[in-house]
């Protein structure tokens, strides 16, 4: 079928955009796919860029990064410490390192009770009851450390391996290393909704850095129209198709006279863009989801923040189904303690209310996501990462908060290639410092890339005279959490 006939606009105005797309899948749409593929390397010289294929056999094909911006307290969640209860109200027995607010109190017990969970007996507090029921799926790393003690740099460090802007985000590296499985979808998507905003540091956290721009995250607003900047067609479909036909006709002469491959690629981008205009709204349209699914996630929960987070989780699953490599979820502020919209877990005060409220927001939706992925056979090929930029101090800030603690904290992994019900590493008896099997974000990303079939030391990009990596010059795969 000749694509140009399609686009001439004459006499086809009765065909819907959706119908158009269906027919396009054998028409110019197939050209669009090759356009995306040929884009690779059309920008900067790509001597060091790998072919979009894994280095070895992957265990997972997708990553969902549940980022807990602001810093979840490990002591109140995944690393319970009975010693805190015993010493509640006593001064710290070891010197206290400088803190952000320098308003350090005494040791503060967790308001949440801990108990062993599941077959594995993984110790967790009651903060995340739904996730606790899935303890046998989680691999908790209790010996995380960060180099940074403040939000913005901590967020950059956690996302890119460097504490400043300009470097590619883990999602961009993944997209760069593996390409995308769906020609109409970006490889790296950040979900926002319910008023969630980028963590401190801004959208640069989701940047492609020096990697080619197609690896940059697309930020989807799951509950807003349009979900993506400029995705909503500015005109009726027939007009737009007629426009595309005109452009194609005009561009062809130009392309012929210059013989530039980059122009060919740019021409085909119009066709991809055209398809994305439908694919993206369709993705965010949850009307086809069953009542049971909506309930499971908590989509209709009375709490607006939980419903919004649930929507993100459900859209994340739909993205995974559509072959997107890397999805990041965004927490919403609940206005407790010294927090703000970009760092909702940051309870410098009112830990009980703040963490309680934030846990309520994410617990059920995340647990639902795991259950739903399992039910659809996607859990085995999806890696879920749950982490903040640092943990919190065992001593109080003021009367009822906790300050930042980058010296020891917890995160967990679940899904493809992960050994569930595992604990790796440990902090000291007060949960202040990681003392056993210290891990860093470099190790986390080395492990994530490993599970995705990529060797973190070989996933490099030459920029400004240096080969950069997500793991800088560090990183060891954390073998203990691998299945």
């Amino acid at each position: 079928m000749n694509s140009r006939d399609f686009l001439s606009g004459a006499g086809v105005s009765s065909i819907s955009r959706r119908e158009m797309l269906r027919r396009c899948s054998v028409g110019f749409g197939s050209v669009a796919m090759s356009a995306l593929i040929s884009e690779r390397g059309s920008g900067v010289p790509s001597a060091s860029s790998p072919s979009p294929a894994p280095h070895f056999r992957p265990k997972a094909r997708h990553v969902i990064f549940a980022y807990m911006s602001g810093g979840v307290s490990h002591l109140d969640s995944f690393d319970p410490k009975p010693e805190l209860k015993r010493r509640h109200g006593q001064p710290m027995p070891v010197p206290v390192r400088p803190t952000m607010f320098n308003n350090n109190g005494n040791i503060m017990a967790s308001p949440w009770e801990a108990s062993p969970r599941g077959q594995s007996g993984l110790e967790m507090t009651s903060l995340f009851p739904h996730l606790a029921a899935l303890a046998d799926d989680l691999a908790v790393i209790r010996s995380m450390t960060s180099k940074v003690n403040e939000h913005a740099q901590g967020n950059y460090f956690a996302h890119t391996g460097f504490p400043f802007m300009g470097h590619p985000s883990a999602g961009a590296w993944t997209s760069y290393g593996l390409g995308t499985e769906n020609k109409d979808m970006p490889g790296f998507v950040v979900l926002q909704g319910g008023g969630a905003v980028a963590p401190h540091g801004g959208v640069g956290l989701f940047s492609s850095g020096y990697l080619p721009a197609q690896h940059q995250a697309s930020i989807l607003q799951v509950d807003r129209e349009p979900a993506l900047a400029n995705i909503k067609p500015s005109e009726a479909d027939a007009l737009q198709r007629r426009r595309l036909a005109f452009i194609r006709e005009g561009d062809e002469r130009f392309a012929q006279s210059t013989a530039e491959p980059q122009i060919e690629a740019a021409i085909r981008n119009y066709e991809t863009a055209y398809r994305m205009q439908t694919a993206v709204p369709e993705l965010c349209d949850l009307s086809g989801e069953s009542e049971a699914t909506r309930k499971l996630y908590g989509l209709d929960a009375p709490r607006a923040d939980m419903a919004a987070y649930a929507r993100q989780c459900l859209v994340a699953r739909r993205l995974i189904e559509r072959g997107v490599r890397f999805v990041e979820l965004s927490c919403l502020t609940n206005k407790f303690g010294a927090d703000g919209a970009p760092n909702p877990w940051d309870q410098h005060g009112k830990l009980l209310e703040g963490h309680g409220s934030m846990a309520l927001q994410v617990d059920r939706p995340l647990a639902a996501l795991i259950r739903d992925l399992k039910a659809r056979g996607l859990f085995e090929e999806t890696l879920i990462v749950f982490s903040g930029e640092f943990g919190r101090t065992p001593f109080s800030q003021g009367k009822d908060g906790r300050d930042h603690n980058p010296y020891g904290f917890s995160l967990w992994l679940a899904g493809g290639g992960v050994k569930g019900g595992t604990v790796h590493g440990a902090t000291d008896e007060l949960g202040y410092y990681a003392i056993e099997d210290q891990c860093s974000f470099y190790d986390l990303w080395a492990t994530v890339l490993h599970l995705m079939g990529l060797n973190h030391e070989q996933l490099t990009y030459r920029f400004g005279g240096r080969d950069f990596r997500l793991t800088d010059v560090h990183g060891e795969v954390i073998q203990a959490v691998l299945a």
Partner: protein
Amino acid sequence: MRTFACIVLLLSCLANLPLRAAVAPEPREFFESRIRPVLANQCHECHGPSKQEGGLRVDSRTALQQGGESGPALVVGNAKASRLVQVLAQEHPRPGKTNDKLRLAGTVIADFVTWIDQGAFDPRDVPASSASRDTNSAWPGIFAARKDWWSFQPVEKPAAPEPRDTGWSDHPVDRFLLVEMERRGLRPAVPADRRTLVRRLAFALTGLPPKPDEVRLFLEDARPEAVARLVDQLLASPRFGERWARHWMDLVRFAETHGSEGDPAIPEAWRYRDYLIRAFNADVPCDQLIGEHLAGDLLPNPRWNETEGFNESILGTAHLRLVEHGFQAVDTLDDQIKTVDSQIDVLSKAFQGLTTSCARCHDHKFDPISQRDYYALFGVFASVRPTQVTIDAPERLRVHRTELEKLKHEIKSALADAWSAAAKELSQQLLGWSKPGEANRLHVSGDELNEEIAELERRIATINNAGRRAALTLRGTPGTNQEAPPTPMSAWTFEGDARDHVGGLHGELQAGAMVRDGRLILDGKSAFVRTAPLERGLREKTLEAWVILASLDQQGGGAMTIETLDGRGFDSIVFGEQEARRWMAGSDGFARTRSANGPAETAKPGELVHLAIVYRTDHSIALYRNGAPYGSHYTPGESAKLRAFEAGAARVLFGMRHTGGGNPFLAGELEEARLYDRALEGAEVMTSFKAGPGLVTPDQVEQALTHEQRKERASLQMEVDGKRTELAARFPDYVRLGAVRARLLAALEAAAKVESHPLHPWVRLRGKSDEWFRTEWQSLSAHWSQERIARRKFNQEKFQMAWDLAGDSAPTWFRHGINPPELAGAPGDFCVEPEGDRALPGLLPAGIFSHGLSQKHNGVLTSPRFKVESDSISVRALGGKGARVRLIADNYPLGAGSIFPQANLSEDAPGWIRLDTAYRKGSWAYLEFATADEVIARDRPSAGAGGRSFFGVERIVFHNGKETPKEEFTAMAIDWPAAAPASLEDLARQLNKSLSEAIDAWRTQSLSEEQRVLLDAFVRAGLLPSQLGDLPTVAPLVTAFRRLENQVPVPRRAPGVLETVGMNAPFLPRGDHTKPQDSVPRGYIQLAGSLPYHTSLSGRLELANELASATNPLTARVMVNRVWHHLFGRGLVATVDNFGHLGEKPSHSQLLDFLAARFVEQGWSFKELIRFLVLTRAFQMSSEPSERAREFDPDNQWLSHARVRRLDAEVIRDSLLAIVGRLDVTMFGPGVNAVAPPADQRRRSIYLTIRRNNLSPFLQVFDAPKPFTTLGRRDVTNVPAQSLAFLNDPFVIEQAGAWASSLLREGGETDQYVRRTYERVLARPPTESELAFSLRYLEDLVRLHGNGQPLSANELAWKDFTQSLFNLKEFIYLR
């Protein structure tokens, strides 16, 4: 699925093998990037210097060839026979990791095959010694070997070669190029047609499409040299500087914020952008520009901008400040290391094409740059301190200096006369009023008459109060029999509008605020009221409001606020911000906010709540709710004193906490609000609450009075007037004496309570009989001397003098700005108040003061660098209007809050201020005193009216306790009675003598500090006159002084650095700043410098000389190559930022050297170079490749035709605006919001503000740089987001619409419309077939829109058509 993935993997490996082998990579780079890392990372541990498993080591080629126990590992040229490859291809055990086998990817093995088959290039001549990595002993050898690289060799100017075809061009550049083409059988393309050429030139030189007129004139210009004329015209256009400044901004990661949390601004960063634009337009030589970037503040002969009257050169140093900073750095040293690293990174990439910053943790892996080199350079940059520099010519700021000094001298002399007289009078008054029985009631002739007047006025007030009550009753407000409430300075009743019914602070309704039924309605989303600026300054004050809350769960809204004009400083009645449902006194950064511990608000819907906050001069703050104290009053502490709001620089808000705050809006209603210029007593607040809202205006009172009342009042008034006339006639001095008495009474009252008061002894001794007089005197005197000894002892024991700025320390400090002066002044200097009733606030001690002549004179004063070793540092200082003292640790300038010791200077009299430095113990730091606009901080203070701000410093002490030093010289302790007085008369005589001597000493510049304290105490107590009304001879002089002082301009500032003394940086092994080693002398990298620098300064000047030098092998080459890159689309060295071993080699090395040498010869002129290059035939060729070029040179490395290029992001945006005739070409000044709606964004993109955390989405889509490092070559990507932007972005659509409507206004035939649009968008007319298919398209558009408009009037169709031409690749690709 998995199987499929494996097959793909296999295929891609297979596919890669021959491909990699076919493209012969540069052997050194191949080895360094693909082979060495694998050997080093995977093999060295067991087969390296320290360990040789199986006898094998792999750290030199010889060793590999020798092999180990299993035989040779490497057979050069034969991968198959090399054991190394076989081993690598298998799983290989790793040490200490039983389950972890080394498995290398297929691509890595393929790399080794390629490497060995192609000769196994290996620069590692000898195995490294085991210690070499750390001790550097092998470095000289490595350095020598690596220095042997093309870009490090001196530039020598080659002669232009003779191509075989001598007819093509005489231009030397063309000859260099043609020779290379001929060598490869290529022929240059034909010349580009003239339309293509004019477009190419306009974009390359100005970043904008050619104007239709320019195109026409050029096409019509048949004379020779037409191109040269066009080029000259474009080079002369102001648009040239805007285009080329942007290229330069890519090199210095230009941004106007520091990034990280909060993204704080880099104040006035736009001045640097303007500096670049001016520099390129004025063709400032490149070496000059580079010199200014490094040391513009130190140049012996800086460039002066004659028009603007400022120093251009100093603006170059702003680039050192364009760094990212962490937020609230807990580890400030870590932040400094990142900052300096960024400075080194940019400097070396931008000007040298080197990646020096790679040498931070180890010697450079490939280039001859050692880690020591890095730390030599580190010291240079770490030696300078960030600040805002003053760019004005000093003479501009020192205007009227001589006249002001002269007037000040005259003021002083007149003051001394007045004080001498007053001192004499004072002792008589004291005596005269101290007769027994009159101790508490000082009599002035005329008092009786005055008392009669007062009584009459009381009666008038009673009538008025009755009228007021009547008015309230009339209005329906519950009447009251209480006493009249206090009188506000301003009051807002919201009857019909937000007018101030008492003063002039009229409010304006903003953003949806409404007035309804006598109330202000606030939606809690955007509505608020803002008043006119204060007409006079406010210190103590009371805020009062009657409020209805829409919801008790709202957070952080402000009911009533007084704030500085920029919203940075404020006091506010705030609801539910820090504690839910509770009221608090909101303030900037919570500085004066504490929990009052009041109860949670329980007001029912619609219930009116009365609130008041009282701010006292003793710095205490008290909240009241419904007339009763709300919680407890508090005093926030020494660092959070009462905030003064200056006249003209502050205003009142209703419904908003402060401008610029998050969640600032209150949802609810305001019934009434009042502002008082004094601190109300608790009883007064209660009275006001009981009286309730409902301010009654004088008119309303008038109307409410009965006829009788009015009549009575009129007669009383007449009586008052008569008695006043009598008083004035009989007792002409009554008013003055009354005022003197009032002050004296107040002083005596204060003196009774305060031991240090100058009249304390007088109060104690007054009324004592002679017998007891002596005893009392002795006991007082003994107490004083003991106290003084105790204080001195305390001060000596508890405090360590750090710097005495009134003495020897002054020259050791560093200063910038028009003031502070170099040397400490003597005691007794003073500042003439620039406004208000006072001539002066008091007398200054010896020390360094910024405001000797004008508070507009600005300054930064910083201490030497020191290691913080005490828990506290106290400074004896004063200041006002946003001045601040800060401890700056490790040059980190953005600290705020409790972990960064600092204090606002808000007292005009000297006092001790303690900084809590415990948190920063162990850090290297300096103290900074700065006027408001010199403070770089997240929470920048604001200057007072007219940009005034001031500070003064006497001395600084280190200590550990929380107490500050005690005052040793207080008026109490002054030894004024040399002999013990025998009587009150004696005491009065001696007081008079001491004062007179002090005044004389002041007059003759010989005032001692004791005398200064005495005089200052009397002046501040109002006992020696400072009010202009009391100083008839001084007042006209002060008026004259103020008139001139007002003409002193406010200084202009820019980001910059403060030079202090040079400091060598310690060597940090592996870049770890927690393990510093010996320091490295400052200098440049050994490769291009001479170690070390012999200077006591930072060494920036030396560095500037080494970089901006004709003998530096890199500078000219790098810069010429950058220009080439921008003109030809690719550099002669394609890796424009890297001329090191990992960079690409030049395609035309002789040409590059020719251009570099010529660039220097021609005085480093960019315009000359650009002109020279664009007048080549090479630049003017067609972009159409020949068959041979398509086949053999698809990358167009040999430049046989012009390179097609996509326009830069900014150029695309600017073109859209220019084409439709809407580009606003206003130059310079603060930037405009990059994310504003399209209609507000019409300036060139270079003037869009670049906020690191909020970059322009439109520009980002088209690869505008992310400002974090040098980016000499931008990415050119192709992503669907670009197409989506062109299809759907409102900015694009708006421009298309603008063109369509202007087109239809012009009128004409439809094919003329098509032609005109083509010419505008693509700078060429359509071809016949384009015209035909355009018209077909337009007809379809008319039909599809179906709006019944014919094509000639169908704006929608023309809008779509125009947008579609924007959509064409020809629009964004330049041929």
